[in-house]
Every structure is written in structure tokens, then in C-alpha cells.
């Protein structure tokens, strides 16, 4: 059993929790490799996908995970959400919860929305990304991908590179990696850096070239192009020159090191084709792991206490 009721952040997860989720995900990865990629594990359970911010990739991944677990799912959000009609989120949640749903999967523009939902309902809550706060299933699928490659997480050196301040991925991935014993270095221009990297126990630098050769994992973040206005960086061109992962930089990675990216990639900005499509790029493995990891999270959260009854 997990030590948490809901999956809202990775900071609340113990190493045992993370290991259990990743181990369970391995079993689901096996299911996902079958001809019939579906098990009745969550038959009859109702899961609401409440996407208050547009998302294609994460939403598809969750939907597929729910279908493969045989759960009934309901999609809400965007233009179909009553939130836009002036109803408060709390009212929306209470209304949906009154229909006896078992779980909310929530993507939100604002930090803390999943916590607010958890306060307003007894249903379980999975955070599918809240503002600039956290995106725990992304971090878990990243951990899964890295563990599958190296067979361990402990002692690995990981650089997370790019637009750190706007990234909910960092908020979940950095603490989860620390919990599992990895050594994390944050890399980005000072205007994109985390205010207090000490909170994550991470080092932080703006000198990508000085650290890249030492890393087992180079994790490139998506630059939020829509947030470029306002001049935290002077131009795409300059960013690419200083922080982009191109062929030349990728060649300086140590043997066996891998490249990750949460997607969607801005090719020519933070990553070039030579790196994105390189043999050691795990970008598609990450996407593949996403379904299994989300299945594992939902399965473990919706399971009750093990009462030890054998049958």
C-alpha cells in the first residue's frame, strides 16, 4: 500500500512508495505488451478526468490507462467545464463527487488545485499537473524510464536543463530523484532558475558545458515559448546556443548516458534532431512508460487495505 491517499506531489512519497509504483508499473508494462492490452483491475470504478487546462498528451495517456484498467471514465474540462460558466471549482467538484465517483485526475492552471479538490471530496485525487507546482506522474514515468535503462536510480547523476522556473516537471522530478538517491543538478540561465534549489537539495548552475560530460541523464525541459515575452532570455537563438542540446553537446555526454525530454519538444530551441532522435534518446520510452505508470498509480490508489484473506 502507498503511504498517501492521493498522488498530489512527489515530495510526500517515500522511497518505498516510489519503488512500489515503479514495480507495479512493470507488471502493467507487461499487460501493455500483450495482444489484448486490458485487464479488469478497476472494473466498475469511475474516474473523472478534470482537465482545466488544455492537454493532449497527458490526457490521452490517462485515458488509455483508464481504459486498459477497465475503469469507467468521464472527461470534463476545457469548454465543456462549468467552471467557465462561472461556477466555482469547489461547486463543480462537489457536484461531480455527488455522483459517487472514485477518483479525480486533475490538470489545472493553478498550483494547489488538486489539494483543493482533495479537501472537497472523499474521492482519490491524482495531480496531472498543477500550474508551476508539480506533475508527479510525469516524474514517475521519468524515473521508470531511467530505472529501466540503468537498473537503478541510486547514485545516478541527473542534469535537468532549461526553463526551470516555469516547470512543474522540475517540482516533481527533482525531489523524487533525490528521494531515490540520485544526484540532481539544475541547469538554466539565472532568469530561469529555481529561487531556492536547496529546498530540493539540488545544485544549480548556468554552465551547461561544465556539467554535461559528467551526467548519466541529461533531461531537457521544454521552454515555454508563450512565456518568452518579457525577456527572461534575449532570443531563441541565444538560448539554443547556450542551453540547447545539439549534436556537438550530445557527443560530449559520457558513454551510456541518456537523453530525456517530457515533450512536446521545441526542436531547434532546447533540443536538436541529432539529440532528440539519437539512439540514446529515451523520449518515446518515456511516453510508453507513461501509460503503465499511470495504470500503476490508479491501481494502487484505488486498492484498499490488504486484509490478508486468501482464496
Amino acid at each position, binding site marked *: 500500500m502507498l503511504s498517501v491517499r492521493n498522488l*498530489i*506531489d512527489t*515530495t*510526500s512519497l517515500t522511497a518505498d512508495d516510489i519503488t512500489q509504483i515503479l514495480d507495479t508499473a512493470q507488471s502493467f508494462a507487461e499487460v501493455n505488451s500483450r495482444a489484448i492490452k486490458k485487464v479488469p483491475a478497476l472494473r466498475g470504478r469511475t474516474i473523472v478526468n478534470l482537465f482545466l487546462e488544455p492537454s493532449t498528451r497527458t490526457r490521452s495517456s490517462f485515458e488509455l490507462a483508464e481504459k486498459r484498467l477497465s475503469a469507467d471514465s468521464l472527461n470534463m474540462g476545457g469548454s465543456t467545464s462549468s467552471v467557465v460558466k462561472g461556477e*466555482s*471549482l*469547489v461547486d463543480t467538484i462537489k457536484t461531480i463527487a455527488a455522483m459517487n465517483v472514485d477518483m479525480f485526475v486533475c490538470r*489545472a*492552471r*493553478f*498550483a*494547489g*488545485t488538486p*489539494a*483543493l479538490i482533495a*479537501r472537497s471530496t472523499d474521492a482519490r485525487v491524482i495531480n496531472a499537473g*498543477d*500550474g*508551476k*507546482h*508539480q506533475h508527479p506522474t510525469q516524474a514517475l514515468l521519468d524515473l521508470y524510464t531511467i530505472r529501466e535503462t540503468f537498473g537503478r536510480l541510486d547514485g545516478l547523476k541527473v542534469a535537468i536543463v532549461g526553463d526551470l522556473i516555469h516547470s*512543474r516537471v522540475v*517540482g516533481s522530478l527533482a525531489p523524487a530523484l533525490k528521494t531515490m538517491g540520485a544526484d540532481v543538478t539544475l541547469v538554466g540561465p539565472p532568469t530561469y532558475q*529555481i*529561487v*531556492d*534549489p*536547496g*529546498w*530540493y537539495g539540488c545544485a544549480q548552475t548556468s554552465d551547461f558545458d561544465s556539467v554535461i560530460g559528467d551526467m548519466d541523464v541529461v533531461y531537457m525541459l521544454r521552454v515555454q515559448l508563450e512565456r518568452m515575452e518579457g525577456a527572461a532570455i534575449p532570443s531563441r537563438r541565444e538560448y539554443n546556443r547556450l542551453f540547447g542540446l545539439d549534436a556537438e553537446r550530445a557527443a560530449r555526454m559520457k558513454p551510456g548516458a541518456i537523453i530525456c525530454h517530457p515533450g512536446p519538444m521545441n526542436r531547434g530551441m532546447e533540443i536538436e534532431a541529432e539529440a532528440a532522435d539519437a539512439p540514446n534518446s529515451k523520449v518515446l520510452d518515456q511516453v510508453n512508460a507513461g501509460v503503465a505508470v499511470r495504470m500503476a498509480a490508479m491501481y494502487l490508489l484505488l486498492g484498499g487495505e490488504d486484509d490478508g484473506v486468501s482464496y
Partner: protein
Amino acid sequence: MAFLIRGAHAVDPQAGLDDVVDVLVDGERIGEVGPGLEVPTGATVIDARGRYLVPGLVDMHVHFRDPGFEYKETIETGSRAAAKGGFTDVATMPNTAPVCDTGAVVRYQIDSAEAVGLVRVHPMGALTKGEKGEGLAEIGDMVVEGAAAFSDDGRGVQSAGMMRTCMEYVSQFDRVVSVHCQIDTLTESGLVNEGRCSTRLGMFGWPALGEELEIERDIDLCRLTGCPLHIQHLSTARGLELVRGAKAEGLPVTCEVTPHHLFLDEDDITDAYETNLKVNPPLRLASDAAALRDGICDGSVDCLVTDHAPHAAHEKDCEFEIASFGTVGLETSLPLVLTNLVRTSRLSWPHLVELMAVNPRRLLRLDAVRIERGGEATLTLIDPEVEVEVDDAWFAGKSRNSAFMGAHLKGAATDVWCAGTRTLADGTVA
């Protein structure tokens, strides 16, 4: 009506009073102060043994939301909250709708409060039209109608040139300019203190510098213009240092602090994202709060204010990022200070009276209220032993967005006389 307040420990540093005496309230005035007074015919006798009697308390920073946001608070409900908290006088901030930037709004607020008859409202007028920071408001008109001071509270005047103009213009009247220090370009999108708190919660930070830089600017403008300057709701240790420096230099600079900045800090905002702790300026470091408590106790801080900021339930029961800034404060201010500073012997009763009655009256240019024969019968009677459970029932105003909901406190006002009218009787608003 006459009241004989028997056996209270009366404290009034202005009158050199710090002793157990009887006080006779005779109409609007104090008839007599002394030991063993005789009961005049028809007078109500109040056994006040074990309680403290002080000049009526003043909160020079509240939001009554009237006109314009009556769903949050009105002059009537705000007056009830103030009386419940032991206050006789409040200064209301001008960020109403319309903004209090003309004599007409000032007059409306004063008259409305008089009609309610629980506390006296002393409106602060806006410095600039619509609090837009662009053109001078009709400051003189508002002075004539009774504005007590001037402020663009809710935001800082962004342009240094405009601020200079405001202070120069106000300097012709005997009024204080009271400033909310915030540089928008540094605090834009900021929701919580920048640093660990903003990192932990994944939200943009509201850096201390965004406040301190404008405090520095306004102190410099005070030196230039000579206009008395009052720094609102200090939240950082360095901000306090800047005020201390200005005072040491002899500039007419004063400051205030709120209970939430004294007794809470950024660590109180947990991953439950408590929206009642979303305030502006934000809760800072524990070390900042400790420095502000030191500032209160060593006399560097002039006034204790609440920044009473009522909001409707739906404005707080929502996502932290879109919740409104502010906490109510009138009903909990005195209990918090009594519990945390007076009971712990860090703050003396005379000093409490300076912070909550004497100094704010002086800064609002109100007549002093003294506990002496012939003085105005504006008094607050405080029971330091009464247990206070801060729950819904404790509040008398319209809104419940208290940062201190659920707290257990000790000590509160039980009775209040505002110019002889008993507005709070045994803890109940009249």
C-alpha cells in the same frame, strides 16, 4: 446614561495613569476618576475588578468595502466587527467602488458610520484619482469633508515623480501620507514570499525587495518634501531597519504592523494552500516576524493595525492563485496581542495603549482621548483572562476569512464606550 466602572486597572500613559481606580462615565464625558467613587443616582455600576480600562482603541488600517463591495462588508457590519474587537475609531482605506477620491465619498462614509453609531469612521482619501497613480485626487476637498489621511492602499504609487507630487501637495495640509509599498514590476504575479515558500508551493514569488525598495524611495521623498510619511503593514526585518534609520535621522516617518505579519510566517502556508493566509504583502520568514515583534516591543513600530480585509466565502474557497488577498482582523487583533505579547510580558499595558490608541490618534490627527476628568468617555474595557475560541461565532463582521481561524486565545475586550455610548456590553455588540 451614566456608568460607574468600578475597580478596573486603568492604563493611560498620557494621563500617567496605571492603577486600579473607579471611572465615572457621565454622558459623553468622563465625570470623575479616582478611588472609591460614590454611585450617582441612576448610574449603572460595572464591576470591572480584574479587568483593564484603556482609552478607546483605534485601528488605522481597515477595509469596510462600502461603497461598492457591500457583499464583503458594509460600514454597518464593519462597525460591528470593530466594536467586537474593542475599537472606537477606525481609518478606512479608499479602495472602494467608486474609489474614495472625492469629498462626497468621504462624507458618505463618515455619515453612514454616524448613522450606525458603533464606531467613528475616519476615511483615508486616495492620493491619486481612482488610485491609478496618474493624477492627484481632490485631496483638499477631502480634507474639508473630514479625510484623516491619504493613501493609495492596495497598491503603491508606481511613478516616483507622481509620488513626489502627492507628497508635496499633501504637505500643505496637516495630514499623513500612508503608503502601501509595492513595486509592481518586481511583484507581478507574486503570490507568496519569494524563496523557499514560492519554490515549495510552485508559485511566483513576491520578493521582499519589491516592498523594501519602495520604502526606501518614499523615505527619500519624505526627506525631500517634508511630508509626514507612514509606512503601512511592514512585513520584513529590513523594512523595519529602513524606518528605524529614517527615525534616527529625524524624518517624520512612522510605521505599522499587522498581527498576521507578527504571529504567522511563510511556513504556515502548507501544501493545503490555505487561502486565508494569502495576504498582501505576503507572510515572510519566521525571522522577519521575530524582528517585527522586536520592533513592536522596542518602540520602533508606532501602531498595530489589522489591515482588516473582508472577502466573501467564494473568494477564498477557491484556488490559492485566484483567491483574493487579505484576512479579516478586527475581532482577533487585541486577543492576539494580549495572548502573544502582553501575557508573555514582552509588551507592557501602557505600551499597548500607545500602539493601539495613542499613536494612531496622533497620526490620524484626531483629538487625544485621555482617561481623566472631563476627557471624552471613549473607553475599552478588557478582560485579560477571557478564553477566546476563534470560530465562526466569534466574528461580528460579514466575512470569516480569518488567517487565525481555529486559534485559542486569551484576553479580549468586554465593553466599549464610544463618546459615552456603550457599543459593546459584556462581549456583545449593541
